């Protein structure tokens, strides 16, 4: 791991009317780091994700990806610049086959650029692109063990595989930073274990920087290099898993006095 900072947020915050959903969030995520964002329900974790992906425009503060200011950019632009995400409640394209879900993720890759008119008139480039895209999608599905199911409809996959497909689809956009929103939600211990392996594998094989939200503290402490704990929209503690989780404030927020 080197010290190059991929994502940097400065005093990031948002208010909805009088509600301060997130305030003064400062994150410094280094390259190839597994970074955890935890906190009790309603702490503002998904709000932070939504700000980082452009769903919400932050009211205060800025965030930088590789030094480039992306504050207030649209969702599409932020994705093109290199932040991809998964959703807390799975959002696949349910009526499309598994491979098509991944192909949608590959849509914006510069090597597959092809205007609608080229496709409508079936220029040679269309065929070349389609073939290359399909190969790449299959490769991604193979890594996630979904190659066999590639022609099934996405909604017919079991829950764990839908989660994996969502990650595969996010990776298809070739991001610099991957945001996973509660990847282990609703999974049994075996599936969680398997997911931890998958996440590590993604980091190593794709050289990916990963920011994840999770409630399962075992999952977080076993996986993350560094953790930020949020509560009521403010940062309670930051540091390595052990430091953060043993912080008295954090224990208080989770368990009470």
């Amino acid at each position, binding site marked *: 791991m080197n010290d190059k900072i991929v994502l940097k947020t400065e005093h990031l915050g948002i208010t909805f009317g009088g509600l301060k959903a997130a305030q003064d969030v400062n994150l410094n995520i280094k390259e190839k780091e597994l970074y955890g964002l935890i906190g009790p329900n309603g702490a503002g974790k998904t709000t932070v994700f939504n700000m980082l992906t452009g769903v*919400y425009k932050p009211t205060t503060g800025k965030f930088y990806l590789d030094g480039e200011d992306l504050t207030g950019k649209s969702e599409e632009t932020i994705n093109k610049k290199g932040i991809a*995400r998964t959703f807390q409640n799975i959002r696949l394209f349910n009526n499309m086959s598994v491979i098509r879900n991944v192909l949608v993720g590959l849509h914006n890759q510069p090597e597959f650029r092809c205007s609608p008119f080229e496709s409508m008139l079936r220029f040679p480039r269309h065929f070349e692109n389609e073939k290359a895209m399909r190969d790449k999608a299959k490769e991604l599905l193979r890594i996630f063990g979904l190659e066999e199911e590639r022609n*099934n409809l996405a909604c017919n996959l079991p829950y764990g595989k839908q989660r994996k497909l969502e990650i595969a689809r996010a990776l298809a956009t070739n991001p610099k930073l991957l945001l996973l929103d509660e990847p282990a939600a609703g999974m049994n211990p075996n599936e969680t274990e398997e997911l931890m392996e998958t996440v590590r594998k993604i980091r190593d094989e794709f050289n990916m920087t990963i920011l994840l939200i999770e409630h399962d503290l075992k999952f977080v402490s076993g996986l993350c290099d560094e953790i930020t704990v949020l509560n009521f929209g403010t940062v309670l503690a930051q540091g390595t898993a052990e430091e953060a989780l043993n912080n008295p404030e954090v224990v208080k927020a989770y368990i009470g006095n």
Partner: protein
Amino acid sequence: MTAYFKNIKNGFKPKNYINYVVITLFLIISIISQPKTSTTTLLANMGFAIILAVSLNLVVGFLGELSLGHAGFMCIGAYIGTFISNQIFDAIGSKLVVLILTMIIGGLIAAIFGYIVGFSALRLKGDYLAIVTLAFGEIVRDICKNIPAFGGAMGLKNPHRYGNNLYIVAFVVALIMLILIQNLIRSKHGRAITAVRDNEIAAKAMGINVTYYKLFVFVLSSFFAGVAGVLYGSFNSIILYGDFSFNKSIEILVMVVLGGMGSINGSILAAALITFINTFLQSKLPGDLSALRLLVYALILMIVVIFNNAPALHKYKEKYSFSALFAKVYGKITDKFYAKHPEKKQARITDDSAAWNRVPSKIKMDEVLSTDILPDDKNNDTDTEDKRDE
């Protein structure tokens, strides 16, 4: 060059191209049989209906936005096309050249209006967009009625009727449109469009430019509606604003719903069928009885809706639906072929067989057909939850 054809051959699925063949054969047979005037009228109307239904299916079925103003785009095409043809006919002289020119101009002007309507689709959804498009159709019709150059309420006269052979042009245009739209749908752009339909939030998060694709689909769809309007205008000796009423839009929508939203072949069949039934019943039912044809129309729609949705009929549907029958016939042919050439079975690309045509749409049939305002679909409910969550 050879690589190009190899690519085509690799991705070749006869099923995808059967509609081109059927339409071409249908056209050739029609030309050979030298139809009567009444038949050419029917054929021409079928051609217009196919263009309108398939282009509306692009918006309703593939983009998943309900548009009730398709007749408005057609109206623009018909008035502009006929007006321009009246101006330039003497200078050019050839009916076909004038028709092609006016088709392009009329289509482009309709497309400009499609772009404007498309902007409302960026902000509105479901019922609200339907209201806006409905209003658009009526406004356009009324404006055309009140322009003196367009003949006012008396209608715009068209002294240069193309003649009975227009059905050939209509079918050729329909075929060209079909190729373009099918190619678009079966490409990365088609995937992006259906992704926007299936889950807009996820599509945005995948970097799909939702604005671009919504506008693109509206522009393309209204372009072809405009072209159909120009054809319609050149077929009639007078263009009346009453021809493009709300009922016309609904008739096109019924074709799309009947054929199955998101099914191009279905739209073609339904367009041909409904046009045929309309004309047939009109000639067979004398006098006041002709009002009954609307009843038949409604009955057909009800039967199709019940056949598609009733659980008790599900097994019959599996057995006797078009796709099942086709799969049976096609399967028999291919089985025989592969029995002879077992090595070729391996070589075939079996990838990604889930057909576009069977993709169910976001807009459910009962939602379209009922007059009640239904609560927003589940997707949207969870959207707001997700954002509030945490």
